[in-house]
């Protein structure tokens, strides 16, 4: 089939449109974050003057007085710990589901899917009540536990899809060649499973990083408030200045590294996102 110049023009427009639409909010946040306060209301997409004051104010006062450093540490720590726990528990479970035959595995998969689908608001009330009694309110653990509701099913689903693709015969082949069962597992299976595990870990981390409802409901201070919740409660330098600039700067700081990360690992993420979506 011949490709005409018109085809190229149409595709170029379509592709350019997608790229521009995807980038606009990010560029816009960067733009606001760089505008000095007096230019904030100039309604221009591209700032005419550039100032880094918004970024400086985020980190001013060090760990104790900065409105941003502690939430950032909380976000990273809570997301990393949740990811580690979910990946370990889900790996065991997904290994059994992908490789072993046992009654109840369909029930586990269906149950995981159902849990992933249900609304987080349904557990917020009971958790709020229990956490206040148990002393878990406003703690890291108090967020890590509810995050397991979405991170475990997600990790199990992605890992099962990946583990089903692993040629498990290789493990036996290695043993025939004289490897011990332990060697066969660590030298053959682990390297084959690692990309899937890594993909699942990225997706789970992004989910934890994104949570807002649990974060605003179950925390009350910088002790455990994560970045999305902290952003919602940001205040300006004084009560008369709107915190728009600081919010934009904080948003850029938490967004750009994730975007870079997502782009570097895009193939894996696409594979993980669509894993198991279509059989065949």
């Amino acid at each position, binding site marked *: 089939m011949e490709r005409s110049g018109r085809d190229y023009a149409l*595709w170029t427009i379509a592709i350019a449109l997608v790229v521009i639409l995807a980038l606009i909010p990010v560029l816009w946040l960067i733009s606001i974050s760089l505008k000095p306060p007096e230019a904030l209301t100039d309604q221009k997409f591209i700032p005419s003057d550039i100032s880094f004051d918004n970024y400086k104010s985020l980190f001013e006062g060090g760990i104790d007085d900065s409105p941003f450093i502690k939430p950032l540490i909380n976000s990273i720590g809570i997301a990393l710990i949740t990811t580690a726990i979910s990946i370990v528990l889900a790996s*065991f479970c997904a290994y059994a589901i992908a490789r072993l035959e046992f009654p109840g595995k369909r029930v586990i998969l269906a149950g995981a899917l159902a849990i992933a689908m249900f609304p987080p608001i349904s557990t917020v009330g009971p958790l709020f009540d229990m956490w206040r009694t148990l002393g878990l309110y406003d703690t890291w653990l108090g967020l890590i536990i509810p995050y397991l509701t979405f991170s475990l099913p997600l990790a199990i689903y992605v890992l099962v899809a990946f583990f089903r693709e692993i040629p498990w015969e290789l493990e036996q082949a290695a043993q025939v060649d004289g490897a011990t069962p332990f060697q066969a597992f660590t030298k053959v299976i682990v390297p084959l499973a690692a990309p899937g595990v890594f993909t699942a870990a990225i997706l789970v981390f992004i989910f934890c990083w994104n949570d807002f*409802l649990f974060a605003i409901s179950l925390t009350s201070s910088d002790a455990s408030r994560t970045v999305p919740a902290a952003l919602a409660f940001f205040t300006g330098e004084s009560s008369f200045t709107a915190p728009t600039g600081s919010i934009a700067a904080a948003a850029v700081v938490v967004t750009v590294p994730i975007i870079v990360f997502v782009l570097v690992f895009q193939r894996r993420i696409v594979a993980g996102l669509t894993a198991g979506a279509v059989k065949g």
Partner: protein
Amino acid sequence: MTAGAPANSAPTEAAPKASSRTRSERKLAWMLCAPAVVAMLLVTAYPIAYAVVLSLQDVDLRFPDEGGFTGLSNYSAVLTSDLWWTDIFNTVFIMVISVAIELVLGMAIAMVMHRAIFGRGVVRTSVLIPYGIITVVAAFAWQFAFSPETGFVNNLPLISDEMDWFGGRFSSFAVIIMAEVWKTTPFMALLLLAGLVTIDSQLYEAARVDGATAWQRFTRITLPLMKPAILVALLFRTLDAFRVFDTIFIMTRGALDTESVSILGYNQLISRLNLGLGSAVSVLIFLCVFLIAFIFVRGFGAKVEEGRPGG
């Protein structure tokens, strides 16, 4: 992980009499699954059951001395209030419009990614940007963009400089829906793309030879063959959209009748500390989600086991 796990090629049909090998395989499988299954039950089934218990009681943390079993009075209070039905309308309105737009846009983007002569990588890369952004951050970005004070949107041609987007109910919905669509269309597009690539390209060649137009090829081949993928994508996105919370909380906090049911639940539980009433709202939301899933699976025949969570 246990080294040297037993069966290599697992038997697909259970033997009538379980041999000692299949029995030990089952035992191992259950042991491996137990921690994850117990954890999932503890963090979900228990709180849900507790929510049901709370919803049958008069629990208001501002008045800790009162209380006790009240039967279904919390439910009747919720179901007879105008606020609940307004919020149901808002949630369903936002859900239906945003999922419909996402389906059309997602399909278009999936086709671009599938068929583009060049630039597939660029499209896939940019499509992942919204996915990686925190919903709250995206909501702020769009709020600042549409705000009459700081935003650039009112400077665009065809849009009045005076337009106060967050000053009215349906103009707020427009911005909320656009932020939701921007954030979640990539997921829809990727799920649809996964379905699109499974279609045999020879079918299109054959149809072309028979003289089918591009539109006929789309409606007679692509759509019917993609029905399972479309249904699964719609189910996941619909359930996800029904939970809409972050974007509304950031943009309007539910002012001017823009509340969703999740915001209502949050307000009752966390802002007003009325655990009884709030739990009734939570349980009702849970039932709504269940109903939507039921309609998709039974009504439209969505094959859920082929799907996956996340989005």
